């Protein structure tokens, strides 16, 4: 079993109860990364991030450096930070905004400097009432400290950060929906092309949208160099990453581990990490990257946790949330609940998603609650196939955004892996796990 030898990059302050305060932040190397960045040319800062090959931590896993450098020619107008974490069972950004908001703010200023952007919006999920308070306090402290405002730390760079509250809509985690919410509208995703944020984002101007965890990595990368970050992990998955482990494990929580050096089995069973399955039951299945990701069976527990490793097996690391089901968990109930979530959160713009999610939810409800018909099982597969034709991974897109094609992941995985469970629900007229 791997040992916890890698440095803690984003969670380094969390041993301190006052990790969210400016005094603790300054006592533990706060703003050193920013001060160093301000002595460099902006493009040199961007190039360090490029060299780190930091993959975006929001879900899509696009390299942050490349996102920035693709647009170096055209000036960027806005930087928007996505703190609308709402993928079920993901709780890493919640931890970062509540427990280390100053690190986030420092990372954001570094990114803004690299992109030469002066107007920044940090979008924080509305349900994070305390998180909003902490991030706003960190921003207020940063103004006081000279890290924000006009000509920060005596440099020629000025910057303003506005903390924007969300109001409860999963879809606003999608970057174009988030921009709509920032413009004061319903969170309806925009069609891409033409509305790639980098081309026509906030107020129609070039906008970069990055995730909270991505930003929180930047102070360390600037302090230690992109090469040091890239030396951790393996392949395309560099550095460390936060994983939110939940479900039937003894010790659920957020863990920072080096990419690729750990397997799912390590994460679940290592006493310093998940601490094993509750009551020593067997793992039945895991969700490797949020409820939008197809499931893995116990046969893939020894797969290293890395972007490409997981993609090769037909799923994704997504938002970094891992849910463990054991033999006492009813996968039909789990898949029904996930379908219910998508039906509730579909914004309603596209027919396959709006109608499909509700239809799937109703069929799943029937099966779980004793009213299922045998033909419902194939009906479900057909519905899934209509939303994401071919049921491939990555899925075919029939909708404006990726919420639609995410709907079939859990339901189709559950049917594919545990068809017998569905049949038993139908034949016994109820849930055998109740």
């Amino acid at each position, binding site marked *: 079993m791997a040992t916890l030898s890698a440095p803690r990059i984003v969670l380094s302050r969390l041993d301190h109860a006052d990790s969210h305060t400016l005094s603790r932040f300054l006592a533990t190397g706060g703003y050193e990364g920013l001060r160093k960045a301000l002595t460099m040319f902006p493009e040199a800062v961007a190039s360090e991030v490029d060299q780190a090959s930091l993959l975006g931590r929001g879900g899509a896993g696009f390299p942050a450096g490349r996102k920035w450098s693709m647009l170096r020619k055209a000036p960027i107008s806005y930087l928007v930070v996505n703190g609308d974490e709402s993928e079920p069972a993901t709780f890493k950004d919640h931890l970062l905004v509540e427990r280390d908001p100053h690190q986030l703010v420092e990372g954001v200023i570094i990114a803004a400097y690299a992109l030469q952007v002066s107007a920044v919006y940090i979008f924080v999920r509305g349900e994070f009432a305390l998180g*909003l308070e902490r991030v*706003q306090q960190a921003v207020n402290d940063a103004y006081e400290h000279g890290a924000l405002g006009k000509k920060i730390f005596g440099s020629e760079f*000025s910057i303003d950060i*506005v903390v924007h509250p969300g109001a409860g809509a999963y879809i606003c985690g999608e970057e174009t929906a988030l921009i709509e919410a920032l413009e004061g509208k319903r969170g309806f995703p925009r069609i891409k092309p033409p509305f790639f944020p980098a081309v026509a984002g906030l107020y129609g101007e070039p906008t970069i949208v990055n995730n909270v965890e991505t930003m929180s990595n930047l102070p360390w990368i600037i302090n230690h160099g992109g090469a040091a970050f890239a030396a951790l992990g393996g392949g395309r998955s560099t550095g460390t990453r936060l994983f939110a482990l*939940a479900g039937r494990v003894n010790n659920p929580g957020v863990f920072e581990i080096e990419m690729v050096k750990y397997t799912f089995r390590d994460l679940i069973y290592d006493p310093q990490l998940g601490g094993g399955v509750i009551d020593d039951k067997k793992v039945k299945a895991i969700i490797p990257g949020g409820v939008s990701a197809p499931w893995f069976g116990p046969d893939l527990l020894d797969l290293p946790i890395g972007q490409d490793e997981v993609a090769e097996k037909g799923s994704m690391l997504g938002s970094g*949330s891992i849910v463990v089901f054991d033999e006492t968990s009813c996968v039909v109930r789990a898949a029904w609940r996930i379908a219910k979530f998508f039906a509730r959160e579909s914004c309603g713009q596209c027919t396959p998603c709006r109608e499909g999610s509700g239809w799937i939810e109703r069929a799943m409800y029937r099966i779980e609650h004793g009213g299922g018909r045998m033909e419902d099982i194939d009906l479900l597969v057909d519905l899934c196939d209509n939303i994401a034709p071919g049921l491939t991974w990555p899925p075919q897109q029939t909708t404006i955004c990726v919420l639609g094609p995410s709907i079939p992941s859990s339901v189709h995985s559950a049917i594919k892996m545990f068809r017998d469970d569905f049949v038993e629900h139908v034949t016994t007229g109820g849930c055998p796990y109740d």
Partner: protein
Amino acid sequence: MSHFRIDIRQRAEEVLALYPRPRSAMLPLLHLAQEQDGYLSDEGIAEVAELTATTPADVRGTALFYDMFHLEPVGRYVVSVCTNIACLIAGGDELLEHASETLGCPVGSTSSDGLFTLEEAECLADCDFAPCVQVNHRYVRTTTSDAFDAVVASLRAGKIDHDVPYHGTLIRVRRAGGLHATRSDVAAERAAALAAREERTPKETT
């Protein structure tokens, strides 16, 4: 005549000043309106429409999209119990049922004394304390029925009002600093930086 109290109106104007277009202040202004009235009243909606240069229908239509905005009056404490995947596995449905009994109101309704509104929530991103419960969007971390009842008793007695303030996600969010530079100053600064970059680009590539 402003429907907003003087302090709320002042905060609303501070918020408006943060955005290049007034409509962008929609969500924070709706939070403020809800902070004053406990829900989005017709008067509150009308004032947000005026401030954002939109219509009441537009404001209402936008607010309806977002779960946190209440178009009808709610209890003093909005209790949200998550039943999404991690909480489901940990007994979220059972805790929600228990909450309904303790509070004396079905899910989605308000208790007769007007104190509590019970909601079934989607993932609240605190899955290591599953099943997750929030009261007025503050985590109370009561994962068992007994702990839940204890928190409800404290709420009834008004003992934890500091940790769980009444309506208003933004009640303690107040911006203190600011850029204090005009947009044209900043634009000139950015233009100069870009020109400087253009100048050094050929040198770097050779």
